[in-house]
């Protein structure tokens, strides 16, 4: 090795008002170097490398977990000394079976193709949904990814402005209440109705996001505590709304559920009635592009990034830091509200206490895995969407509980958040391989 060790990454952003473009490696001195050196640096320096290695590490641990909680495997291991090959083979089969089942549920299942070719004619195949069945896993992945992408953006955008939005759940509930209420209580013409409902979801989420941002801006209260508290407030508030028929509860029963929303307000399906993929997916992609455009092509986005990089310097440069906090939380909350719209109007068609699921927490993992960038969020959302889409089939086929998806998700993010750990694990050279800039720890008082 003749190359000198590169400079360590600076732990804190400089006092410049210009934000460093997210994730870009620092400019380095140009020297004569071979192509091989360039390639190696590109691979080793890249945060993408860290992310891929984090995925591998998490998948390996998840596989071990699946293997060593499997009944057949444990029995085989108790006979390890008489039949070691059998024990290893059983463990491998359990882990591989889990991942194969996940893949078949989320991307492509060969059995559906076999069934397609057994049909007598193409028209019956199309008509009876055999063709759709081939694409069903992909459709499900898109359906699952839609709210994850939107909620992930709701975390990623404020993250760029230096705020950590844990309030995805409260904003989701706010959006869901608006979308569901507009969906069943209002009569509007066909296309207008669904647009109004989607926008209503945005407004509902934005109101809660703005509240957290405004409290932070006015009083300096840390947004993490405020958003966590708002999560509980909204959780109980939703339970309250769903507990009385004079509020949101559906008439004629004691279940905590709203009336079904009008069919006018359903998001249009994209690929026929057999597949659940709907216009929500397009909304998610459009929002990801919109967030990218906002961050990289507008003054507002520049101010967001600047405030995130160094609030003090931004203030000196004449920016209104507090206004930016409130605004970025408003937009972020609105995105979480849109996520709720896609769930309520796209797949659930009603609102109940299960509607918000774990989207609040999943959004954080999506945003962190996506390195806080819109493109990354889309990729991470698709990946986790695939895990979510494949997990029910996996549990049926292999008996591995669906919670393994949550474990894998958390492990991925844990590794992504600690690039030094990944480098140490995979013996990478200590380079500028930084993942998401979670190392810039600021604490409560920031």
């Amino acid at each position, binding site marked *: 090795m003749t190359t000198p060790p590169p400079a360590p990454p600076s*732990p804190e952003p400089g006092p410049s008002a210009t934000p460093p473009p997210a994730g870009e490696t620092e400019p380095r001195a140009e020297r004569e170097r071979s192509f091989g050196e360039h390639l190696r640096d590109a691979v080793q320096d890249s945060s993408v490398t860290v992310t891929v290695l984090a995925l591998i590490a998490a998948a390996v641990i998840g596989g071990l977990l699946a293997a060593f909680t499997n009944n057949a495997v444990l029995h085989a291991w108790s006979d390890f000394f008489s039949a070691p090959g059998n024990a290893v083979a059983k463990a491998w089969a359990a882990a591989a079976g889990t991942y194969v089942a996940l893949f078949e549920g989320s991307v492509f299942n060969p059995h559906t193709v076999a069934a397609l070719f057994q049909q007598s004619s193409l028209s019956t195949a199309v008509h009876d949904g055999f063709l759709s069945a081939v694409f069903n896993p992909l459709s499900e992945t898109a359906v699952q990814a839609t709210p994850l992408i939107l909620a992930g953006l709701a975390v990623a955008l404020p993250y760029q402005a230096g705020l950590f939005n844990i309030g995805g759940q409260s904003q989701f509930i706010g959006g869901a209440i608006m979308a569901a209420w507009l969906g069943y209580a209002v009569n509007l013409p066909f296309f207008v109705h669904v647009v109004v409902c989607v926008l209503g979801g945005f407004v509902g989420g934005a109101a809660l996001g703005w509240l957290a941002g405004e409290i932070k801006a006015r009083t300096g*209260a840390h947004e993490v505590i405020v958003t966590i508290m708002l999560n509980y*407030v909204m959780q109980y508030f939703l339970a*309250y709304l769903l507990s009385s028929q004079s509020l949101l509860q559906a008439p004629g029963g004691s279940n905590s559920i709203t009336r079904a929303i009008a069919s006018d307000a359903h998001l249009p399906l994209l690929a026929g009635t057999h597949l659940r993929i709907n216009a929500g997916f397009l909304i998610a992609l459009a929002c990801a592009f919109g967030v990218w455009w906002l961050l990289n092509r507008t003054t507002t986005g520049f101010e967001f990034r600047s405030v995130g990089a160094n609030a003090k310097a931004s203030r000196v440069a004449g920016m209104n830091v507090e206004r930016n906090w409130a605004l970025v939380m408003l937009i972020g909350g609105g995105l979480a509200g849109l996520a709720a719209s896609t769930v309520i109007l796209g797949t659930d068609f009603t609102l109940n206490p299960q509607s918000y699921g774990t989207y609040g927490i999943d959004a954080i993992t999506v945003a962190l895995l996506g390195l806080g960038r819109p493109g990354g969020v889309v990729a991470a959302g698709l990946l986790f969407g695939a895990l979510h889409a494949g997990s029910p089939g996996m549990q049926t086929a292999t008996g591995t*509980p669906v919670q393994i998806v949550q*474990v894998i998700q958390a492990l991925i993010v844990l590794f992504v958040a600690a690039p030094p750990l990944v480098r140490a694990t995979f013996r990478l050279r200590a380079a500028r391989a930084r993942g998401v800039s979670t190392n810039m720890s*600021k604490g409560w008082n920031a």
Partner: protein
Amino acid sequence: MTAAASDRLPVLLSPGPADGAGSWGGRFAAPVTYLVFGLLDILVFGLHAHGSVIFSFTPQFAKVTVPNLSLPAAATCYFCGAVTLALAAARLLDVLGVVRLGRVPRRVIIGGVLFLFVIALLAWASGGQSIPFNVVNLLSGTFSVSIPIMLGALTAVVCSTSGVINIAIEGQLLLGAFCAAIATTVTGSLWLGLICGALAGSLVAAVLAAFAIAYRVDQIVLGVVLNTLVLGLTGYLYNAIMVPYGDTLNNPNTFNPVKIPLLGDIPIIGPVFFDASVFLYITYVLLAVIQVGLARTRWGLRTRAVGEHPVAADTVGIRVLATRYRNVILAGLIAGIGGAYFTVGSVGSFGPDMTSGEGYIALAAMIFGRYTPFGAIGAALLFGFTTQLQSILSSINVPIQSNLLLLTPYVVTIIVVAGLVGKVRGPRAEGVPYVKS
């Protein structure tokens, strides 16, 4: 540290009041809030109360009995409201500068307003009912449901004072509960279960410490991710091994209440403080140890130094990173005990996500309690009190929206964090990793 300095800017830029209260609602936020409470007491509870309310102070089978207290419900509400309005007026005069109240009287006023509000609420809720309202049940129940929150809040205090944000309390509680259930069921020993729960809590804390201190990962992000990991892991293992082998893995005994001789027979105080689960006594001991430890010992001085100004601490030879590692891991033991309470202290078996966010509430209790052990315990009890009040009120068929009652502590926390009762100032270096230069 630029990060630590930047938080002073908003305070400098906004002409805030002398006591540093937040700028929302200005100086009049506190008196106006008390005024609202007073009006609630009178207009909502007073006008709708009827009959008389009977307060009972004696638990069942008590050796010493205290006579029941019977009060006219409406008059009680009016009285509470009138006193609250007087307190609001006093606070207003304080704000206007006519009278200068010190820190202690201001806090006494807050406590008084809340206390009177609860009395008025109870008078309204159980007025006209023939069954007396048992105050002792309310208070002792408050202590039992608060145990995990209190222990979690103590953990948070120790970690924060050392300069590490511990959001992973939720995960420590959950893994503690899980491991305590397994260990007790397998070994048959409650104490071994408790110890395993504590060790599980410190295992999560050790991971937190390693990532936060050595790898300098953002501690808030890290805590949330660790919580997700533990939630997924325990949920997975629950379904994978506990459901099929429930009898052999998830069937622990629970600790019986221990009554302390003599003290346990004192009326009112005895049943509340001295006739409880062993976990409550552990909480007392830990509270005393941490309070005295932080305020009066060399360990406490070093811990606070490391949390406030690690550079200075390092300069005088305190090992910053070692201190933080040790404190975070030891504090994890406390949260682990709190987790064990869920399975071997109260419920008797593990269920997925059984901590249901109490770790986050513990964190809020710490901030509410201004990073002091006693404050954190008090705030934890306030959270537990609303939970217990809600469950008692719903059991006596009071026409109150239990969901609205349950969300009040969270709203109160937001109001508190937003600076209604003065700016809460954490340790200066909290959450800032220390890099030796």
